[in-house]
């Protein structure tokens, strides 16, 4: 039996091989969108656990969060699964009303019960993104008392402090606040895990697409959700193929074997510019590239040295050559597009000024320092460019390459001198970055909270207090001003050389229309794509 089946498949593949030249090679099926992307970062498809770029995007296309915002204008917040909400007088309770008459892909109705279940579940499972809801004073112990259903289509969301309403709402736009089909998930519950084991590789949502299949390091397949409450998607299927080599992605795109290539390098982009079959779509992302200067280092802890380092990066050249088209110069810790983002870039390469500052710091001859560098081509190239400019002021920068896990482990343990990194905001509220770049409540080695300021051993009690205050400021304009002040302080004195903001670039076949490249990965939408 097995033997004959094998023979049959050999015969079939031989036949297909013979037939391929006859059918046109360079065409993807008209109802299927095929993308090439490096999807090796996916570890789970459970919205309560998803915290990776790729999985966020998949969740964004297949689940619905309570609240959404317009990707073109982040400040425009509206209800997605929720119809409306009111804030109580003391500012500590938000009452939500759910939209009527909508169903999950499974056919089950979406009710307040599902919304409460999803949020409580995320907090109780306590996976990486649980802090997004947890920071509002909701713990696994009190979650049942803080998030309560008040009617079939309404529920209350209580907090421990009157946090800024925009902060709370932005938290509820994150992937972790996706509404999960309670009935379906609980059918697969085992040992009180809220269906976590099952949902890791399965789907229980209500978005425009359903997750049909995930084969690690091979492909993810999304299919049109027939029960979606919005307009049915023009594409019946979206397929992500795992193709790690960027040059392979480019060749496939040029040949028309895929519709969208997701990991193009600056060189690929400039080479594709002249190709009539391909167009380049890009959108500003929230991720920032920065250097973290460890304050445990005797040289880097001098304020003048920190300042000098900021004059020794050739911002414009890096953004214009190595990373052309993929980043823009940005120096504040809030990415452009955020509430309170400070978009001035006061620093530029100025070796003379840096030398003056180094002389003032008492190290006119420069010094030797190491930088842990992730061995990806782009990070390595940027690190080498900085090595060259810093050498001009006598700073000998020794690069220590390692894979992402190695360098990050060292960084998290504060054993680095300088770390060249990338930071992506977790949700669209300014607090997400302020709470890491300008917040360090306890600088001790055994601190429980370890934001970026802690990782670089930057002791800032006053700035931490300012960040706490901004978190609960109800007036948006005032809040924005507080964050701008925070950013200026970090620019002047901080141990971060923030030098660029990411631009996501997609190479698309020219017949593809309607891709939305949003500011964060769960905003990238393919629901309206036509071809």
């Amino acid at each position, binding site marked *: 039996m097995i033997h004959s089946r094998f023979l049959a498949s050999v015969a079939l593949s031989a036949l297909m091989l013979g037939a391929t030249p006859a059918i046109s090679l360079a065409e993807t099926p008209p109802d299927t969108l095929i993308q090439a992307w490096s999807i090796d970062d996916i570890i789970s498809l459970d919205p309560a656990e998803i915290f990776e770029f790729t999985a966020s995007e998949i969740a964004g296309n297949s689940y619905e969060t309570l609240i959404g915002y317009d990707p073109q204008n982040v400040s425009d917040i509206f209800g997605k699964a929720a119809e409306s909400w009111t804030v109580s007088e003391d500012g500590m309770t938000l009452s939500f009303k759910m939209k009527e008459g909508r169903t999950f892909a499974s056919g089950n109705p979406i009710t307040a019960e599902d919304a409460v279940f999803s949020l409580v579940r995320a907090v109780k499972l306590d996976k990486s993104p649980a802090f997004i809801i947890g920071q509002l004073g909701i713990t696994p112990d009190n979650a049942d008392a803080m998030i309560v259903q008040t009617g079939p289509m309404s529920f209350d969301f209580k907090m421990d402090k009157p946090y800024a309403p925009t902060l709370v709402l932005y938290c509820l736009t994150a992937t972790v606040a996706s509404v999960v089909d309670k009935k379906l998930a609980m059918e697969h519950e085992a040992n009180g895990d809220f269906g976590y084991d099952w949902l890791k590789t399965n789907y229980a949502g209500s978005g425009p697409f359903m997750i049909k299949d995930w084969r690690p390091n091979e492909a993810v397949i999304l299919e049109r959700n027939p029960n979606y409450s919005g307009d049915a998607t023009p594409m019946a299927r979206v397929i992500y193929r795992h193709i790690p080599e960027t040059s392979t992605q480019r060749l496939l795109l040029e040949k028309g074997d895929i519709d969208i290539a997701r990991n193009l390098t600056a*060189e690929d982009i400039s*080479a594709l510019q002249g190709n009539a079959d391909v167009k380049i779509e890009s959108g500003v992302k929230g991720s920032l590239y920065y250097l973290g200067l460890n304050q445990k280092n005797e040289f880097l802890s001098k304020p003048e040295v920190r300042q000098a380092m900021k004059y020794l990066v050739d911002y414009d050249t890096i953004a214009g*050559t190595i990373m052309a088209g993929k980043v823009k110069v940005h120096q504040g810790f809030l990415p452009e597009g955020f509430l309170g983002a400070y978009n001035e870039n006061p620093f530029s390469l100025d070796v003379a000024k840096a030398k003056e500052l180094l002389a003032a710091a008492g190290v006119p001859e420069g010094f030797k320092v190491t930088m842990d560098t992730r061995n990806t*081509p782009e990070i390595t190239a940027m690190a080498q460019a900085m090595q*060259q400019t810093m050498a001009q002021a006598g700073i000998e920068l020794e690069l220590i*390459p390692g894979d992402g896990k190695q360098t990050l482990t060292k960084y998290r343990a504060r054993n680095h001198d300088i770390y060249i990194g990338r930071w992506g905001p977790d949700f669209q509220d300014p607090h997400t970055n302020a709470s890491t770049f300008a917040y360090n409540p306890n600088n001790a080695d055994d601190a429980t909270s370890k934001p970026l300021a802690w990782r670089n051993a930057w002791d800032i009690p006053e700035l931490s207090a300012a960040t706490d205050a901004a978190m609960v400021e109800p007036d948006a304009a005032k809040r924005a001003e507080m964050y701008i002040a925070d950013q200026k302080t970090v620019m002047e004195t901080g141990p971060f050389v923030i030098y660029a903001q990411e631009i996501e670039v997609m190479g698309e076949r020219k017949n593809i229309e309607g891709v939305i490249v949003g500011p964060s990965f769960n905003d990238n939408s393919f629901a309206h794509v036509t071809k």
Partner: protein
Amino acid sequence: MTMTRDWLLSDRPVSRRQARLGQIYRTWLDFRTNGLAMFGFLIVLALVLVAIFAPWLAPHDPLLGDLNHTRLLPPLSEGYLLGTDDQGRDILSRLIHGSRITLAVVALVAVIATPVGLLVGTTAGYFGGWVDTVLMRLTDIVLAFPKLILALAFVAALGPGIENAIIAISITAWPPYARLARAETLTIRNSDFIAATKLQGASAARIIWKHIVPLCLSSVIVRVTLDMAGIILTAAGLGFLGLGAQPPQPEWGAMIAGGRNFLVDYWWVATMPGLAIFTVSLGFNLLGDGLRDVLDPKRQK
């Protein structure tokens, strides 16, 4: 000139020195007739000269590039014969300076690994018995690992860097020399002249060092020269994997790794160092081949 030649080729040398120099000169004459070997010799000679005079030969700074103006220029651009890389650095200058690293690796590995291999092999061969068993099983164990993988493991443990790469390669390079030296020693140890030396009261160390090692040397030298190409490739492999020389050092393997991302549009960034590795490896192989021909005692007329 002819006087020197006659003196060298004299069949009645009057001093040991004259005999030895004469022998070397005859070997050289023999070697010179082998065209391919001479070609290899010239490549290696050129490598050595380039390495010595690198700062005077290189037209540009190998570490400093101009990102804004000289990035990824094609070969034969004005002032940049072999083009520039993604950091705007002159590839030719980097190759020239990189020859120093390559030569240093090859020379140091030869200096570290050859004596170790010789010592282990001759000792094992001369004493025999349990000394032989212990030493040769140890050699077998090291030989059982693939070279590059073992070197990788050592570098991972010692930390990346060119010094550690040299140590790692040396650790993996000595066993073949030990094997070779032991085999040679076994054929010599029972000779009459060894027995005579023994009777005169020479110590084991003296016999090994003065009488056995010199006789093993020629075959080991041939083997080392033939291995040079492998050593260069291993060093380049470590550099390619980011475990050898660290940026911005112009190590050839690391240069290929850096150029790999641009291969589709800017072929020269990876191709030029690749050609350099190819040429030098070929040179060492041809040289080793020629040396084997002239140094093999069985081949001599």
